Every structure is written in C-alpha cells, then in structure tokens.
C-alpha cells in the first residue's frame, strides 16, 4: 500500500451476476474448517468499527457444542456519518445474504437474522422479497439455512451486539455484561456469530477470490479494503471503497475542499484528527480505525458546535442502564456549555477529561466507553474553540 495516496477498489459493488451461485456452489464442496481457515488467513476484521477478526469469531462459534446456533447480520447502522450499509443493502443485498449463508455453513447454524434499523424501513419490502427468493435458492442448493429480517425501532444502542440480541428477543435494547461473549451465549443465549453488513459481503468476496487477493491489499494490521462514507465539507461526499492504510493527509488531498482543518474518523464515537496530524495518522487499526464514517470540517466550522452536537447525540442515545454513561454524557455536555458561557474556569476541561477517561474504563458497553474519543481529541486539539 502506497500510504501517500488513496487507491480506489471495486469489490463490494462489483457487478457480477454469477457471484451468488459461484460462491454457494464452491462453499458447499468445502469443509467448514477450511472456510474458517480461509477467513482467518485473509485477515478480515469486522467492518462495523470494532475490528474483531471475522475468521476467529466464526471459529469460536463453530467450536461451541450446541444444536441451535445463529448468524446475525447487524444492519443497525447508526453511527453519525455512516451510510455505507444502507447503500450495500440497497444495491447488493444478495451478497450480504450469501455471506450469511457462508457463515451459517461454516459455524453450523441453521438460522440467520438480519436486524435492520427502522430508519431504513423503506428498504424492508424489497429486502423481504429478495430474502424469500434467496431462502428458496438455498433450499434448492441443499443448504439447511434460512434468513429472517427483524426491524429495529430507532435506538442507536441496538447496534451494540448484545443490545441487538435483547431487541430481537423483545426487550429493551440494553447491553449485557460480557463475558459471556456472543460466540458462547448470544441471541436466545445460543452461540452466535454477529457480523456487520459490509463484513459479510467481504466474506462473500473472499470466498470468490480467495484470501490471497484480499491480503495483497492494505497493511499488516489492516488487510484489504473498506467502504467509506464521506460527508461534511467536501465537494465529493458519498460512498467510496478504498484500500486501507492511507494517511489522513492522502485522504484529505482527494476529498478535502482545500481548507480542511479536521477530520472526524469513525463517526461521533471516533477520533478527531486535526490538520497538524494529517501526515502522521494512518487510517486503519494501527492508526485511527473507522467503521467507515469520515467527516470533514473546514475552517468555517466551530469545533465547539461539533463536540456539542456529538455529546447531545450520546446523551440522548445512552440507554441509561449504567451510571458512568447515563450521568457522564450529560455532565460532559453541561460542562462544555458552562465553560463556553464562562460559568466555569477553562481548567474545568481537565476535570471533564478525567470524567471521560473514567467512562472509558467503567461504562458497560462501547457507547459510554467511546465518548472519550471525540471528547478528548477535540478538547485537546481545539481547546481555544471550546473556551472562547
């Protein structure tokens, strides 16, 4: 990977009418362990943002001794700035279903669920029709696997895997304690492999081309390519599939408007990279990881407003179950408002940073834990904008 320039890729949306049949027929002749080895070898990491190695997730789920196991497709895309899964589900849903079938075959699951966020209900009718056709195709090909679609109801937290299970089970979407992890006790307390929409398409792509081709792209820690959702102050907003491992500088060269002062990598829960660090930061697991959200801000934007917007988002979307997150999000928001109004001394920002750090180690799930990412990176790099 040449890290100083971007490299466009066309795998996810590649127009290939024979892909589904080719992959399903190929997989059917393979041993599940070999499929899992191929996935591990590819180095594919979860594309939802957390970046857990997909092959290992499948391996752990397969290793569990249970008659019932599940594959769950996490289509509860809700991270501000992310819209790639919507585009994937709209344009190539059969590749997602195929990835679910491959996962099901590999881990020994007979049932798959797709959990689709309510904001994407406009896709639901079409997806239900396509999944029915797909289930029939699986039956014809001799797969003992079928997929059902369940809808969310407007809760960001349900993108957290265990909250998502709770929601399908008909409960409040409150994250569970871990361990046990989903591979041991997931949906309906059965071993579950839960994968992001894009991850499942890459699984399909890897089964077609093999791990070698995928591995050739990217870096040691960030193999392959990834779909980016690009928005904010850019003349080229939209969806782009890019090889991993480029610097933020290379990204800004291509997508910036010439006046980019910061890039928020990974959505509201991600990290804000200021201009002075563009050259040092690699977009990938060795640098700034992202589930795909890339938001560009130019010098006309107030980073105070950006941070305030994020904190309002978290304060609203916190499930309220654990105190660090429920109280922490609100206090961080009130805190920066008080500093801005001059009711609190600027040094109060240090206290707030400590609170954010405390949330990182004490909140129950990724939501509360990751609020520190935007908070500390914005406060540290744009302190004067927060105060004055």
């Amino acid at each position, binding site marked *: 990977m040449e890290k100083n320039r971007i490299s466009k890729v066309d795998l996810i949306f590649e127009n290939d009418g024979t892909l589904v049949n080719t992959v399903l027929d190929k997989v059917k002749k393979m041993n599940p362990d070999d499929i899992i080895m191929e996935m591990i070898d590819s180095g594919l990491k979860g594309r939802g943002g957390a970046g857990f190695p997909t092959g290992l997730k499948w391996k752990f789920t397969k290793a569990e001794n249970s008659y019932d196991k599940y594959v769950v497709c996490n289509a509860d895309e809700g*991270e501000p700035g992310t819209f790639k899964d919507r585009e994937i589900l709209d344009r190539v849903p059969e590749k997602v279903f195929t990835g679910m079938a491959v996962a099901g075959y590999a881990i020994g699951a007979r049932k798959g669920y797709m959990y689709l966020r309510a904001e994407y209900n406009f896709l639901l009718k079409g997806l239900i029709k396509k999944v029915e056709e797909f289930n029939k195709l699986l039956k014809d090909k001799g797969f003992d696997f079928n997929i059902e679609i369940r809808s*969310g109801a407007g809760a960001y937290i349900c993108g957290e895997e265990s909250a998502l299970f709770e929601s399908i*089970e008909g*409960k409040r979407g409150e994250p569970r304690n871990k361990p046990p992890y989903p591979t041991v006790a997931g949906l309906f307390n059965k071993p579950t492999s839960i994968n992001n929409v894009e991850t499942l398409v890459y699984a399909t792509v890897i089964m077609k081309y093999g791990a070698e081709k995928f591995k050739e792209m990217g870096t040691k820690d960030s193999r392959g390519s990834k779909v980016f959702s690009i*928005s*904010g102050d850019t003349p080229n907003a939209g969806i782009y599939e890019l090889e991993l491992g480029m610097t933020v500088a290379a990204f800004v060269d291509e997508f910036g408007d010439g006046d980019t002062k910061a890039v928020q990598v990974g959505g509201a829960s991600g990290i804000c990279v200021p201009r002075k660090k563009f050259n040092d930061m690699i977009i990938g697991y060795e640098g700034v990881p992202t589930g795909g959200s890339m938001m560009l801000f130019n010098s006309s*934007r107030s980073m105070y407003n950006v941070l305030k*917007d994020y904190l309002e988002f978290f304060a609203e*979307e916190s499930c309220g179950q654990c105190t660090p997150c429920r109280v922490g999000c609100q206090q961080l928001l009130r805190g920066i408002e008080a500093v801005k109004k001059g009711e609190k001394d600027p040094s109060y920002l240090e206290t707030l940073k400590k609170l954010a750090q405390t949330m990182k180690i004490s909140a129950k799930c990724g939501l509360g834990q990751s609020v520190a990412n935007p908070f500390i990176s914005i406060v540290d790099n744009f302190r004067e904008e927060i105060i004055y």
Partner: protein
Amino acid sequence: MTDVNLIINEQIEKYGRERQALMPILQKIVADKNYITEDELALVAEALDLSAADVYGTATFYTFLDVVPRGKYVIRVCKTISCHMSGKDEIIKTLEKTLGIKLGETTPDRKFTLLQANCMGWCHKGPVMLINDEVYPELTPEKAIAIVQEYIAK
C-alpha cells in the same frame, strides 16, 4: 379495539406466543394506528403473558414506538451533525410555518406530527427527513414545502 386484537393474533401466529413477538406487534400497531395507547399496551401484555409495566418499559425505550398521540404522517427531521451543517434548522422553521405547529407538536386535525431524530444515514445528502417510512434527502425549504403540500392534499 378489535383491530389491535387482530394485529396481536396475526403476529403471534407468525412469531409464536413468545416475548420475541413483542417488537413485531408493537411495530405493526404503530404502522397501522400511528401510536400505541395505554389500553392497547395492556392488551398486548395480556396476550403475551407479560406485565403491563414490562411492555410499557419496552415500548418507551424505542423512539419509533410512539406511546403518545401522533399524526397520520410523522415527520422526522434529522438533527445530527451533517444535517445540522447543511441547514436542518431552516428546514424545521419552514415546516413549522407550513404546518402551523412547533417542533414536537401534532396538528389539530391529527394529520401531521413534527419531530427531530438522530442520524438516519444520509449524511452525504442532508438535510433529510422521514415522513413515516419514506425518505426525502437533499432538502431545501422550497422542496420541503412542496413535499408537505403533497401530503396535505392526500
């Protein structure tokens, strides 16, 4: 009341008389009747052998499962960062004026409810709004008025 029983039975037939039928039941009631009343929540609870408090607690957890009166058309304008930057405030002001209500309110004829919502995944095409399940991206005040006028004429 009868049609809610119909919805409950339909969904139980599909998902079983189990807790996992709860979301599909509540979602269908909202889709058909715009919101769920307390009496209906109690009926659902009875059908699934759950406590009414448990069902209420679950319904109120989810933004899209409305338990207060809503209009036939629920307008949700995205308020998150990209849509904020691209002018959602102006869209809301325009809608308030066109509908004669404030954010959070329902028109007296129960036709429209105007709300804000968090990111709906159209950050490259903001501002965006949902009217029930339909998406309207790349809004301008003029476009928003024209869309709402179509719904008013319905």
